[in-house]
């Protein structure tokens, strides 16, 4: 009860501050929209897809996962600004739940990601993408879990390194290989065996496959429950670890 109330309090505050400057939501969505408009048309021939709509079914899920990963990973920068302003220290002297300090923030990130995901899906609908609403909602759940995990990890790392200068290269070195090896932008179906072998160890690759299966209307695919389970477990671990960073001493 207290925990739910505390989380809601932090979520409200963070959302209020975000809405005061909603331009960031749109800056975040700008790049994926560009990909959608300018990159996707090249895909039909490249993927050997029968129609444009079929190409989008492969490309859009990847784009959304990409957005969830990057949107989450870079949230730590905002937290470092809060650390510097003393806002975190001020919160930590109150009896508020430490998990709520993290979760309130991460949930804000999840919601802002979902808003972006809806914008992109709606745009893709204009390009003849068709998805079952039930499958789509399940895909959004998967995206929400990815964003929850990446934003929590980003906050935890931010509390550990305490400076933008250390966080930026760290997040980039993590994000680039994860991105390339997950088949996010193009499926790894045609990749050589060794590359697929590595991708099997990349949790994001499972998440992308799961999302693609959902967009393809293949709800029964193993990829769906596997993707959901792996992401949920990792999100729980990420949240647990990051909340511990909030509880530990922070300067």
């Amino acid at each position, binding site marked *: 009860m207290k925990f739910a109330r505390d989380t809601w*309090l932090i979520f409200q505050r963070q959302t209020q*501050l975000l809405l005061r400057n909603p331009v960031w939501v749109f800056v975040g969505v700008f790049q994926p929209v560009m990909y959608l408009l300018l990159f996707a048309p090249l895909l039909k021939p490249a993927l050997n897809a029968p129609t444009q709509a079929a190409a989008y079914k492969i490309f859009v899920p990847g784009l959304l996962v990409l957005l969830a990963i990057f949107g989450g990973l870079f949230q730590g920068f905002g937290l470092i600004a809060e650390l510097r*302003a003393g*806002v975190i*220290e*001020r919160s*930590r002297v*109150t009896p*508020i739940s430490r998990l709520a300090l993290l979760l309130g923030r991460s949930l804000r990130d999840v919601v802002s990601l979902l808003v972006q995901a809806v914008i992109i899906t709606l745009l893709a609908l204009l390009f003849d993408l068709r998805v079952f609403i039930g499958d789509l909602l399940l895909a959004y759940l998967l995206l929400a879990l990815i964003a929850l995990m990446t934003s929590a990890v980003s906050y935890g790392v931010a509390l550990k390194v305490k400076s933008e200068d250390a966080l930026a290269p760290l997040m980039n070195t993590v994000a680039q290989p994860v991105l390339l090896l997950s088949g996010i932008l193009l499926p790894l179906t045609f990749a050589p065996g060794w590359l697929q072998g590595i991708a099997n160890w990349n949790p994001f690759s499972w998440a992308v496959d799961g999302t693609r299966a959902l967009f393809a209307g293949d709800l029964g695919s193993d990829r769906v429950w596997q993707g959901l389970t792996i992401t949920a477990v990792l999100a729980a671990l990420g949240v647990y670890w990051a909340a511990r960073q909030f509880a530990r001493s922070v300067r």
Partner: protein
Amino acid sequence: MIETRGLRKSFRSRAGRETKTVDAVRGVNLEVAEGEIFGFLGPNGAGKTTTLRMLATLIEPDGGDATIAGADLRKDPAEVRRRIGYVPQGGSTWDESTAREELVLHARMYGIGKADAQRRAARALDAFQLTEYADRKCKTYSGGQRRRVEIALGIIHEPKIVFLDEPTTGLDPQSRAHMWDEIRRLRSDGMTVFITTHYLDEADALCDRIAIMDNGEIVAEGTPGELKREISGDVVLVGLDLAATPQAAQSLDGEAYVNKLETVDEGGLRLYVDEGATAIPQVLRRLDHAGLELRSIELHRPSLDDVFLTKTGRSLRES
């Protein structure tokens, strides 16, 4: 109200490949009574902030323990948090929110309901004369206004004790005087106030009792009056021409009321006496008698800086 026993904290910091251990606080024993303004006086790096952060449950002590407002720091930090307020040295407000929002949020972080939080915020804004700016973003505030918001945040839940870390550092003289009044008002509201400062005049004028801290240790403790009396006696500064100085020294040396006599390099004497007020007429008579002309005479009462100098061998003004 506060009692600490052997509080210790070291930090390990990495400089290149070497790790260095800094003993920031080395065994602090303190007693702070209810309803007083207690001051921690010491130079930068003395360990004041580290001690405060331990007492505020922000960092865990390496050793020792403390009781704060009846709650045990080690066993029940959650209860300590409920009973204290803490205002950090480097600020605690967010540029993009308003004072009112910050106050309501902070009250609610203590579990206070929304309506009550809003009432308290309005009352605090009024008490700290902030109502006029209450709905402006914090980034538009002056240093003094911002400091007042931060103090209001620290006491929004009516704690028994409030810790203020260097509350007047960086303020102009007028805001400083204003802040002193605010701090005295907290005491008259029945709160125990624990402040840190590196300003001698602040410790002297504002605090009921002080502890002088240097290099992680408390080197002296008492009321400002007691501490100064410990450094027995006054100093009389006699201004003389360089040529007249040796002769004056000769005629004053050995007088019963002069405990110690030093010559000043640029000319003049420094006399250590028990009671400046009675010594000065005698000095004047003696020098007049010797036919020496004096340029000035000054009575110097011991300051907290003299206390610091005696205890540490350094002047607080220099460090």
